[in-house]
């Protein structure tokens, strides 16, 4: 189930690739943004709209949207909450966690025992540390019956907990993922 790499049926045509390269840094905020794309690609506006709709239906475009600066809206605190969920329940409960309104990303990832026993990652954002802690509690309430309680691995001197929260304290690099020319 490697969605770690892209399936081949999602290959881009050469025109679609040009569209991605042109728009991955953004669209102009003007009355007819697709007209701008049409001029750049030398095709009609109707063709750009059709291509955009098609890319969205294929899941290559998630949506046409704006991204706010967290900090300017007062969301100063984020937490990567991580959970050790029993394997047979992780898909069902992962989806439930993903549906919580304050969770922005939720993934199943591999454990690396004994150093890392968490397999479910859910990112939360809040305006105060208390708010972020409260979200962690809400997720815990939801997962309480499917969390794996492990005996401490005394050989490695590592205490394995059922969950943890990793708060970011500094951005060390942020260049964004880009399709290369």
């Amino acid at each position, binding site marked *: 189930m490697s969605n770690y790499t892209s399936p081949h049926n999602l290959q881009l045509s050469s025109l679609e690739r040009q569209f991605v390269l042109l728009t991955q840094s953004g669209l102009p905020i003007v009355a007819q943004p697709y007209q701008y794309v049409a001029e750049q690609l030398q095709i009609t506006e109707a063709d750009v709209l059709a291509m955009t709709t098609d890319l969205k239906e*294929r899941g290559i475009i998630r949506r046409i949207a704006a991204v*706010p600066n*967290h900090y300017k809206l007062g969301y100063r605190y984020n937490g990567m909450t991580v959970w050790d969920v029993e394997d047979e329940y992780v898909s069902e409960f992962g989806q439930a966690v993903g549906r919580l309104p304050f969770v922005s990303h939720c993934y199943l*990832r591999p454990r690396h025992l004994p150093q890392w026993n968490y397999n479910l990652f859910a990112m939360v954002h809040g305006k105060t540390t208390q708010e972020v802690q409260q979200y962690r509690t809400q997720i815990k309430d939801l997962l309480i019956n499917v969390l794996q309680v492990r005996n401490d691995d005394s050989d490695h001197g590592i205490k394995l907990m059922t969950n943890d929260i*990793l708060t970011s*304290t*500094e951005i060390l690099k942020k260049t964004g993922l880009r399709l290369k020319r």
Partner: protein
Amino acid sequence: MDKSSRHAHTELAELSLLDKRLINLLQRGLPITERPFLEIAEQLNSSEDEVLERLNHLMSSKVLTRFGPMFDAVCLGGAFTLAALAVPEDRFEEVTQQVNSFDEVAHNYRRTHHFNMWFVVGAESEAEVNQVISDIEDKTSLPVLNTPKLEEFYVQLYLPA
């Protein structure tokens, strides 16, 4: 207070009710039509001109960081992983430079944990991603915790203004 991110003291934006409603609507997504802002204006009992003026203002004051198609990075034909290092505090700066020197490292954050450095590696193929991980191990002499996503349950950042 924590010594939190360097953004911890970024000043809060002053937003009108219209600004807030615009930010909330636009995070959810626009219709794909010739004049998307006209439809948005109608929903908000505003005018297309006013919506465009406010949005350009929100972009120039950096309340909004980007407007446009949100691409699924994996669908664009790449391979990605989230990885971590447990960096000794006295080597933190050195290792930050070593990790950031790879073009394939897109994001890198310091986090509060024994694994205190978390970064995203993106490349053309899974083999290339694994090569970068191995190169990072060689360069830093530290073992990388590699946690590629196995299943995605939800991805959409929505922050109500």
